[in-house]
């Protein structure tokens, strides 16, 4: 489930957007015991100068956004990407009827930034 992205041109800055992964939606609810789903989120938005300077971005992204502002056809803007991620753990049945707890790193976007 997600919210419709704002229409182009309204200049939304780069930030995390909500995206909830529901295991029932992908047909895994019979064998995934817990959780029933999780907030994966995703990054979207523009990295224009000076907005790029306000978020947790590398200095290079600030330079690139500045270059893009003065020469948009020569230099693309930086990318809006995850900069802080969290793990999740999933409890499920495997194909040998074992109960398995598995840990997955970097499954949830906590923060986005321009890189």
């Amino acid at each position, binding site marked *: 489930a997600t919210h419709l992205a704002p229409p182009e041109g309204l200049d939304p800055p780069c930030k995390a957007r909500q995206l909830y992964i529901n295991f029932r939606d*992908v047909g895994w609810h019979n064998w995934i015991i817990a959780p*029933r789903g999780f907030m994966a989120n995703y990054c979207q938005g523009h990295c224009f100068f000076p907005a790029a300077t306000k978020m947790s971005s590398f200095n290079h992204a600030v330079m690139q956004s500045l270059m893009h502002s003065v020469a948009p056809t020569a230099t693309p803007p930086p990318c809006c990407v995850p900069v802080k991620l969290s793990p999740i753990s999933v409890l499920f049945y495997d194909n040998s009827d074992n*109960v398995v707890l598995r840990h997955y790193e970097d499954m949830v976007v906590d923060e986005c930034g321009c890189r």
Partner: protein
Amino acid sequence: PQPSPLSPQGSALLQALGLRPPPGPPPTRPVPPVMWRLFRRAPQAAESHGAGGEGPEVPQEPEPLPCHVKELGVPGNIVRHVLDGGAAAPLEPALGSLCLEKPLFFNLSFLEPREQLTLVRLELNFGAPGALAAGQGWELSLFQGHGSQLWGRPLLSRPVPALREPLHFELLGLGPLGNASVPQNLSLVLELSPAGGDSGLPRGLCAELGQSLEASLLVVTLEPQLCRPPLRKRR
């Protein structure tokens, strides 16, 4: 569209996550309390919710170490609870002074070569009959073997004061779990005899112990390449 497990996208996603869903109807096996407890204490993003199921709510603790199972105190990112594959097999009467001679079989074919074993814990739960001979002490031995055939010396042999509570034995490093390659299965024979000989055990207790015994393995493995690499050194 909804990616079914069989669609290319669904299969690719399952493979990427190292998941192999059970074929056929939904499993009905109850989730062991230990697995619920480990799940509730595992690193979770605050938003992953809908955890449902039994077990008490456990307040989230500060950020635990990645790839470490804190409650068990070992490195690991996969914990599996494996039931005894021979539980339903008919029990042979034990010979001599033995009260119980029970084959145990665990299928470990799920283990991938890239997984490192960090814990293999056998749990023996005798249930209500275990409380019947409260004052009785026991001698318990575990052999590698199949049926009533024992292969070599016991993997472990020790006195057990009572059978009331579940018994735990660490098997990592013993017998087939002692060398680098991981076995595809673990075939064991459990021998139980009353300490100091047969001093008047309740009639039929041994048969009851054999029928009520629930044996399971808790297997913890580590896939190092799935753990976040250490932070890049500052140049």
